């Protein structure tokens, strides 16, 4: 019975470390919300849940309902009945973000309001006129969109720097929805006369125009699998470490803090458990490597990828050391590193996609101007500029710049004594520079996540052998090394975490993004718990909801179209986020674990899991 209890307790701790604690700490919750915010949050949560449900049920919805198909450069097929729901979700997102913009600092408010105004004018431009006379006609859709846009600008000016009021969101929503309903309604009426269904092409136009604004969220979502894998690794080791004694549970200290012989039998067993677990995982990692290299089965490890992968690990380790020196202190712990992930991932994602917002603005502007009668030839320059901003070269330059900038920023932050964030930024910086290299060099760089995993695993095993040989392999170090081994597995196999979802949905990219969005929605709302003059708490909540609802709506659109790139290829961006941010986070976590292992630190160890 004792064994069963111990296993039960370990599983409970694992579950707590992996699921309960991150959700408890990171969920959206009332932290002194003003009156009237709660109903808006309820609306946002319902909208988010509805969009997730649409994604999960997309294959069944498609099978059960008629599909509306439009054929152009790509084929777009949608279950026609759910299209109004997609428009509704988009309009909700716009209303949420504009409601947030009312109370943001001026420059951010200008950017967000400018984008909302462009979207409204763009929706209005869909009303070309009953006779199809085109842009020169002044149509009700255009007029209403201008009135709504002006009203939003006035509202933003009047309410700027005032406190949140409950009526702001319904007022903004009413303005946005009125403009959308008039424009979409008239556009539908005009198309129907020609036997055409306006819905899917309009939805496609809207999604391809503004869907790109969900890219930063998708990039950040891509890191969720890695984050989850790291949490799983640390939670597993944390669960193994802890003995079910009242003392151990109350102090949250691993058994290795005291000499094993002085502890009860149940506690003395923990190092054995750790040792067995370490040996098993080490055997698994070595066997997998041998199978991959000798028989070509299992992990896809190319021996040619190993040298550069080792160099990448080396460079990050070097940067780790430089940052510690710059700080004049020891290296950051894994919990410290992970605690900065949420605040780092999204801004980095925005920086990596910094050209997208101008591209969206240009595309919207061109369409609005053309609809108002400007000669398309006159706006050709804007399209050329938009194309240039989306070119491989522009992307490579941005990645290089962001990569170098992040490394510089990491050093500056470390000099100011910051811990955790610099290490994370440096690792991401290295990977960002690497991601630019294939475009610049026009050649694939020989490294891969499985190869990195091999380097991490082998280094960890060598480290363990060296420490054992020097009789310094304590239970705590063993636990840390076991964490490093599990992290190496996470580097190689983290995609598997999204596999059950991808089997349901039928597309791994979709599953990866959905996993990221849902996990982020559940655990990344800690930013809404804060408050500041520039970003008041209600604004944070509204922005969080807007980002989540819009991202998952774009994904739902792709899922219902059974084409993840129907609007914008979120899948590719999430994969990129996983490859860049996810790999960087895992390597940063590995560095933290190695640094802790190597340190002669004899502090009373705490859980390796960030609470």
């Amino acid at each position, binding site marked *: 019975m004792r064994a069963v209890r111990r296993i039960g307790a370990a599983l409970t701790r694992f579950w707590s470390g992996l699921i309960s604690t991150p959700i408890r700490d990171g969920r959206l919750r009332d932290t002194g919300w003003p009156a009237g915010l709660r109903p808006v949050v309820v609306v946002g949560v319902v909208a988010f849940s509805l969009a997730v449900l649409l994604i999960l049920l997309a294959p069944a919805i498609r099978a059960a309902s008629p599909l509306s198909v439009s054929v152009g450069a790509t084929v777009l*097929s949608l279950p026609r009945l759910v299209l109004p729901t997609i428009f509704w979700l988009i309009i909700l997102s716009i209303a949420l973000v504009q409601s947030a913009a009312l109370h943001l600092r001026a420059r951010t408010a200008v950017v967000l309001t400018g984008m909302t105004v462009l979207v409204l004018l763009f929706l209005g431009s869909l009303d070309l006129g009953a006779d199809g006379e085109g842009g020169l006609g002044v149509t009700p859709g255009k007029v209403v969109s201008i009135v709504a846009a002006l009203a939003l600008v006035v509202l933003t000016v009047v309410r700027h720097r005032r406190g949140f009021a409950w009526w702001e969101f319904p007022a903004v929503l009413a303005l946005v*929805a009125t403009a959308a309903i008039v424009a979409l309604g008239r556009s539908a009426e005009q198309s129907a006369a020609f036997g055409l269904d306006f819905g899917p092409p309009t939805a496609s136009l809207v999604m391809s125009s503004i869907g790109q604004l969900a890219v930063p969220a998708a990039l950040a979502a891509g890191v969720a699998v890695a984050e989850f894998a790291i949490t799983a690794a640390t939670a597993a080791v944390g669960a193994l470490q802890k003995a079910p004694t009242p003392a151990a549970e109350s102090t949250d200290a691993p058994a290795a803090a005291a000499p094993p012989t002085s502890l009860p039998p149940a506690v003395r067993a923990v190092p054995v458990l750790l040792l067995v677990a370490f040996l098993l995982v080490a055997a698994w990692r070595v066997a997998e490597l041998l199978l991959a290299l000798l028989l070509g089965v299992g992990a896809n490890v190319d021996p040619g990828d190993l040298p550069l992968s080792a160099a990448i690990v080396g460079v990050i380790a070097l940067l780790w050391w430089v940052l510690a020196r710059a700080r004049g202190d020891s290296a950051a712990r894994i919990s410290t590193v992970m605690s900065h992930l949420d605040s780092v991932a999204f801004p980095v994602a925005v920086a990596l996609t910094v050209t997208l917002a101008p591209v969206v603005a240009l595309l919207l502007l061109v369409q609005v101007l053309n609809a108002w009668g400007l000669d398309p030839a006159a706006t050709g320059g804007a399209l050329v500029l938009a194309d240039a901003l989306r070119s491989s070269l522009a992307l490579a330059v941005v990645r290089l710049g962001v990569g170098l900038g992040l490394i510089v920023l990491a050093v500056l932050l470390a000099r100011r004594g910051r811990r955790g964030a610099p290490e994370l930024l440096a690792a991401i910086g290295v990977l960002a520079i690497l991601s630019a290299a294939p475009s610049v060099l026009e050649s694939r760089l020989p490294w891969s996540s499985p190869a990195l995993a091999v380097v991490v695993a082998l280094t960890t095993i060598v480290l363990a052998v060296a420490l054992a040989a020097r009789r310094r392999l304590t239970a705590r170090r063993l636990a840390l090394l076991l964490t490093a081994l599990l992290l190496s597995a996470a580097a190689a196999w983290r995609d598997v975490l999204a596999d059950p979802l991808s089997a349901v949905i039928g597309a791994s990219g979709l599953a990866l993004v959905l996993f990221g969005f849902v996990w982020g929605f559940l655990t990344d709302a800690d930013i809404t718990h804060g408050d500041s003059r520039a970003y008041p*708490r209600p604004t944070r909540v509204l922005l969080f909801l807007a980002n989540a609802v819009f991202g998952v709506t774009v994904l739902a659109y792709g899922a219902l179209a059974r084409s993840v790139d129907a609007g914008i290829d979120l899948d590719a961006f999430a994969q990129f986020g996983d490859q860049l941010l996810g790999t960087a986070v895992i390597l940063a976590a590995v560095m933290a674990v190695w640094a802790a292992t190597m340190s002669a630190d004899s502090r009373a160890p705490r859980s390796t899991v960030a609470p």
Partner: protein
Amino acid sequence: MDPDSALPATVAPRSARWLAAIMVPLVVLVAGIGLDAVDQIAPEPLGGESARYIPPDGHRTVLRDSAGALVVAEHSRSVGLEGLLAAPPAVAAAVLARLGDEEARTAQWWRVTRTDDLGTTTTDLYRLSTDGVAQVAAWGGAVGFVFEPELLLLPAVVRAGDAWRASGSALADGALTYDAESTAFAATGPFTGVEGAEVPLTGGCIGVDSSVRIAAPTDALETVLVDATVWCPGRGAVWSSGTVDGQSVGQAEERPVAVAALDRGLPPVDAVAEATGLAAPQPLPLVVIDPFFGERDGSVQFALPPVALADGRIVVANDRGDDLQWWRLEAQRAELDAAAHPGGTVIALAAIGDGVAATTAQRAVVAYDGWGRRLWQWRGPELILAPPLAVPRADGPPDVLVADRGGQVTLLAGDTGSPRWSVALGADARAPLELVGDAVVISDERGRVQALELADGAVRWRVDAGFVEGAAAAPDGSAVALQLDSGDLAVLSAVDGDERFSARYPGIARSLIVTADAVLALSDERLLALSAVDGSELWRDRGGLALLGAGLGAGDPVVVLDADGLRLHAGRDGALLDEQRLDPPPVSATRRAVVAGSAVVIVDSDGRVTRSVLR
């Protein structure tokens, strides 16, 4: 920040909380209702109770006439002006003038196109209205009609014993007049065809005895049609028998799974042996010839990439009316050779032997012969986005391999459309199918690429290659090249899927060709030629819209389609052999091209067709 912004909910005015709790969901709900209200859904079908006799869009009827000839009829249903787009201008103008713009926008149409054993195609246009089902016009035959008022075939409510009559003009300005009398009768049968087979009467059929006299006021020309027609729900007219000017006519529905293909009889067009140049691009006006109404310009929108047939014709999907069209490229113009309506929007097209297979929004695969006669159709569980693949057979017409979006791969018998085997990929299918020897290579949305045995669909090999944008097989079937969305270009062995070599390409993937000695990958930024042996770079040039192989032999030239021109490159070293300028397409149009025989045919989605002959 206002002091009240940070007020905890507990001290906020209770009225504000109540108002928020009511108003926020209310406005959200009203916005949703508003969006739903303005969303256009398909209107309720007009035609009263008689609408139930009208076949759905895309339905096929096979009829055998009293002479023993087989007639394949296709049914089209549409709403609004779209219903008139296929009609000759004289017909469309007359109908529009009579109905008026407003009524024409909401009119509900039923169009029946019949093709007989001789390849003769005739079309009847009907309108469903509150009055019932009435014939509007007929064209394609030796005589055409435009009925004004419309010739009522079935009143909105019709019972055995009901009688009705109509009279009016049968051609514009009363050049022909009509006078019709009809009486409904209980269709209890039996009704048999010319071969004695009984036509099944299902769902409550009704018969109509009618007499139609068509006369020319200016001369003594008069035609009298007397017949009895049986209508069955969802099937249209399934049996008829009568006389035309005393001569017996009639037809009866048959229900074969498939119709045998008829040879179109056009000779194959040879490809140019060693192209070294491109002739100046020549615009080809599209012309539709009607035996009665004469020639008219073709008003079309090409939504899909065109398909070239061995006889030099191109097949396109016309977005206006969702029709398949076979265009014959003559010296100075393109003439419509045949047309068909598979039903719903056409999604993908492929040449299958001498025929064509189309996939549609009705989740169907529809096969046609060279005359545009529908041979068979098969419905799957999901849309089929990738063009069907012809799988040659030694003992008959090629089979048709399709992969639906849901990942179901099915091999259909080429002669009947019945599935030979079907397997699930376990993920959504992604890129086009590629035939590699006796296997087919297909990729999915989980980043896997697999080769399936053509014999039974068994997996020969499966690799995690990434997300595939395009695939092409080596001419000898030894390898398959993949253009991945990651910017990688990978060449895999067809035997076991092992990677032979890989390379990078910049930009967005457009086309991929594998010749005997090279792998040619085109993106919007680069044309890259690699050695098929070891992947070493042979040459490079700027990108384009599409890459067309003039041949697949070693060193054969390739044609690159740009937005504003065509380039002919030597396959061996990439040397620019020739270049021709094209007028750029409108911003809203998509430009595509296909090699048809010895010519490159450029097709813009707005209906422009241009030809440049390889020489």
